[in-house]
């Protein structure tokens, strides 16, 4: 164990502090254990070897006492405990160490459920992962209705809730609800549930309000001990779990197609929980934890988590925040769907006036009406109050002329993707706005430098590339042109942050990051089809990666016309690497929404358009050429300085394309699949250290 303690040398130790509490109604003395890492709620309590040892010592101190009626566990204010300390986990290099972490957690936590007196967990705040498992080991649980987050997020990262979670939770609340927490939520953008939901699911036996949660919990505990309150539990092991497990496996296969081992291991463990003894179940968890800790998928998951948690918040290359100018009014050129979506987002997040302009009154009215209708939807869902809805609606207006931009600080265009059109728009905008007003373009592929070439002040032009749907996708590619100055860039990053987007600084290069890589990726798959590979073979060749959708499904989502347009732009820039498929052009000409019919079967007419190739590839060949193409393109992008580092490529693919954590975006996967030579990342980064 001293071995694993060394790995966690930087551990912020969560101390388990024991204090006696006299329970109401003469119910006796409770030894109340407070879990507290000595920081406020912004640094939640976690468990590394030091924290586990402290809890073990606390249990030692109470286990020998004969004067106790009960043992309780509670967290520091606003936090119960949020699970394992993951910083040390990334340093584990041997299976024995991995196994030791799992065993230590079990050895300590299980004692809470095996004391001679009942144990009570008082879940006063966020309870995640190992934190929730501490509570599950206790005999009884209360939860505060104010708890913002209850979750077992292990599968999100590439682990399983392996300190008892997979064995205790299904028995407590049944396999279906347990799988929701253990697998479904983590794989749905790591969704968390609130205290009230946790109580409804049966995770807690009683719920009390935050204002006097601990007092009322202690009162309840006293009543339980005195037999005045009885807690009823369902024996879920009597039921047949096979259908629930099979359904879950089916959904997993749909989503992951076998990629990412963690959810599958979690499912096996849940299945085991119905019949396994505590020892067997906990032992199986130890083995699963050790296997996963020694796998690169988890390391990629931890790497990805760090990217979205840390790197996304401090974008590489962003200028000093203090240079940012205040934005008190926003102009949006255009009133189409994209422009309206942006207007809504700006109004909601910046809470400043937003003016849409268009030459056509009808389009303008439609754009403003769209925003108002969306606000009404938010109101209907209770996401905004009536007053807020009035405020948001009043913020968004339309104007037929650009005079309305005179006092705007930030004007973004969302007009037709054509250089001449955009140049003309910006010339008109520049004629009315102040000298410091930032001009932003939502172009997905045009050169920023060329776009600004005719401006009087090209230093104020910046690229601000949203992903569709604007309100949902978290990535913003911020593009710096040759002339863009630091104040403009800083303002763009500040606006991005206010919009709650994660911004990545990208050089002015064709199609920036996400579209360039997706186009290269799809280009290889389409070329393989053009050459004669059956559509279904090519489209499923990369299933093993567990991407959110197949290449042709993505094409369908984007629309073949848009896909074709981007491929033409990239072909013009890099004719050697980006082709334009004649079959794609025909598909667009035929007005097809894609190769799939509405029922997801292949559209025979689309199949006909793509037929005629004479040198088919195998799925493996398609996979390999596609990955090699990605590797080559990323290498070139890094050489060109499109982004600061491979980490930014990965961040873009995770946030902009939804590429999964277990691939680490993409470069960790290319490294571990042996495609990248040399590696993009040092050994040990997003991989098991040698």
């Amino acid at each position, binding site marked *: 164990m001293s071995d694993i303690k060394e790995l966690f040398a930087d551990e912020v130790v969560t101390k388990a502090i024991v204090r*006696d509490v006299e329970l109401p109604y003469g119910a006796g003395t409770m030894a109340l254990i407070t879990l507290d890492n000595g920081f406020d709620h912004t640094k939640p309590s976690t468990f590394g070897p030091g924290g586990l040892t402290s809890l073990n010592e606390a249990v030692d101190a109470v286990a020998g006492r004969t004067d106790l009626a009960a043992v309780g566990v509670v967290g520091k204010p606003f936090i119960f405990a949020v699970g394992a300390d993951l910083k040390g986990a990334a340093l584990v290099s041997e299976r024995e160490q991995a196994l030791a972490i799992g065993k230590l957690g079990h050895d300590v936590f299980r004692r809470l459920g095996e004391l001679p007196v009942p144990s009570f967990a008082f879940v006063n705040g966020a309870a995640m992962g190992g934190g929730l498992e501490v509570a599950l080991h206790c005999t009884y649980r209360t939860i505060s209705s104010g708890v913002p987050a209850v979750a077992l997020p292990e599968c999100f990262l590439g682990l399983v809730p392996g300190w008892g979670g997979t064995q205790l939770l299904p028995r407590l609340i049944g396999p279906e609800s347990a799988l929701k927490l253990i697998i479904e939520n983590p794989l749905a953008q790591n969704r968390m549930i609130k205290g009230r939901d946790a109580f409804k699911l049966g995770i807690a036996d009683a719920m009390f309000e935050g204002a006097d949660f601990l007092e009322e919990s*202690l009162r309840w505990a006293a009543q339980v001990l005195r037999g005045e309150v009885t807690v009823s539990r369902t024996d879920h092991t009597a039921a047949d779990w096979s259908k629930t497990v099979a359904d879950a496996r089916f959904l997993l296969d749909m989503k992951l197609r076998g990629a990412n081992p963690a959810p599958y291991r979690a499912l096996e463990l849940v299945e085991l929980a119905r019949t396994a003894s505590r020892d067997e179940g906990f032992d199986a968890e130890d083995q699963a934890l050790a296997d996963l800790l020694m796998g690169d998928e988890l390391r990629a998951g931890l790497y990805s988590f760090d990217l979205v948690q840390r790197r996304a918040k401090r974008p590489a290359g962003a200028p000093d925040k203090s240079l940012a100018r205040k934005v008190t009014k926003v102009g949006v050129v255009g009133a189409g769907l994209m422009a309206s979506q942006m207007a809504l987002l700006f109004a909601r997040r910046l809470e400043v006036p937003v003016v849409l302009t268009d030459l056509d009154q009808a389009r303008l009215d439609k754009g403003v009406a769209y925003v108002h209708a969306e606000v009404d939807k938010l109101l209907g869902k209770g996401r905004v109050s009536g007053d807020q809805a009035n405020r948001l609606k009043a913020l968004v207006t339309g104007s037929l002329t650009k005079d309305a931009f005179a006092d705007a600080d930030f004007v973004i265009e969302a007009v037709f993707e054509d250089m001449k059109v955009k140049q003309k728009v910006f010339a008109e905008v520049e004629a009315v706005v102040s000298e410091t007003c930032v001009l932003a373009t939502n172009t997905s592929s045009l050169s920023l430098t060329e776009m600004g070439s005719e401006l009087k002040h090209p230093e104020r032009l910046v690229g601000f590339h949203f992903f569709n749907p604007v309100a949902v996708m978290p990535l913003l590619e911020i593009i710096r042109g040759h002339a863009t100055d630091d104040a403009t860039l800083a303002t763009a990053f500040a606006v991005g942050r206010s919009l709650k987007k994660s911004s990545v600084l990208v050089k002015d290069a064709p199609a920036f990051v996400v579209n360039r890589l997706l186009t290269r990726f799809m280009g290889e798959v389409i070329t393989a089809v053009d050459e004669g590979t059956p559509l279904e073979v090519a489209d499923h060749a990369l299933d093993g990666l567990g991407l959110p959708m197949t290449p042709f499904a993505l094409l369908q989502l984007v629309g073949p016309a848009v896909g074709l347009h981007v491929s033409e732009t990239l072909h013009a820039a890099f004719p050697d690497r980006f082709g334009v498929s004649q079959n794609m052009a025909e598909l667009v000409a035929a007005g097809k929404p894609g190769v799939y019919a509405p029922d997801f079967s292949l559209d025979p007419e689309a199949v006909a358009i793509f037929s005629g190739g004479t040198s088919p590839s195998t799925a493996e060949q398609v996979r390999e050429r596609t990955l090699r193409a990605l590797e080559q393109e990323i290498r070139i992008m890094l050489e060109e300085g499109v982004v600061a580092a491979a980490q930014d490529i990965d961040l873009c693919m995770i946030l902009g394309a939804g590429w999964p954590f277990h691939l680490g975006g993409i470069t960790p996967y290319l490294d571990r699949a042996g495609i990248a030579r040399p590696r993009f990342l040092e050994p040990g980064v997003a991989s098991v250290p040698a």
Partner: protein
Amino acid sequence: MPSSRDVVFVDGVRTPFGKSGPKGLYAETRADDLVIRVIRELIRRNPNLPPERVDEVAIAATTQIGDQGLTIGRSAAVLAGLPKSVPGYAIDRMCAGAMTAVTSVAGGIAFGAYDVAIAGGVEHMGRHPMGEGVDPNPRFVAEQIVDGSALVMGMTAENLHDRYPTITKDRADAFALASQEKVAKAYADGRIQPDLVPVAVRSAEKGWGLATADEAPRPGTTLEGLGTLKTPFRPHGRITAGNASGINDGATGCIVAAADVARELGLAPKMRLVSYAFAGVDPEVMGVGPIPSTERALRLAGLSIDDIGLFEINEAFAVQVLAFLEHFGIADDDTRVNPYGGAIAFGHPLASSGVRLMTQLAREFGERPEVRYGITTMCVGMGMGGTVIWENLAWEGAK
């Protein structure tokens, strides 16, 4: 609007009182959280009272800054989860803060402006030492408007000994010892615990705990021990830490209602408000304040001191209780006076104490149906006294 209606005291609770300071029970607990706990317990103990029927929340604090600021009656009401439609305010008459909160809402009820109100007080003297942030007008001293000792409560108590030469330090110590003994007995008899609200207390070092009893009482106190204590306010003086209340943290609260509304809601009131009065005296002998305020309250009620069967007098200092008793010709050890003991043992978190007196009187009334009238009274800094006369609703004569 009716011009006057009967006002009743329905129920009162308080937090255990802690000793102020870094090692005290509430060293790391906010003052407003103590108030919130009290409000929630009042609502919980009186399920017949729909929270939206509370028309006012009046909370007193002497130092109204920080966690005792922000119009604490309103902010505590919101944080306690009362409907946002329930208003609240902050009130201050130093030691008589909670008492004034009660009389103020009672006046509003009698006038018909409210049906039901919550009134109480808080003082976290650890977080807000007496005199924090005060800026006395220099004219007080320059123009000799008050004596220089007027703002130091211990000195005013020494001055009171001067005014009543027959009240010796020995008498004060004997009274203090009796207070400790009465509190110990009241605890042993379970008279205090039913009206205490347990408070979860957190210490970064010791973790979470639960405050279930007053921290200040010293059950083992002896006369000899009291005799050895220092007299910090005067060399060879009479006031010691043993015959005065301490520096404390705590909160109190009660439900006050119109008698007819209490009936309508099915509440169980314990006392009827008979009369109340406040009076001013020389600030340098503020401890005599209860004498004129009580005389005035008796006159308003048409009662004499002989009609009073129970006295709850705040023991800011033993001398101040003894001065009151001497004035009205009551013996030092009269069993009608502070039967459960007083602030010398319980502690005196300034603005909260008034409702502690009422809560104890209400419980004593319940046990003493032969008593019809009782008094709650206290002295107040800057030379004041406050008195409230109550009628026992459990009085057997009414049946």
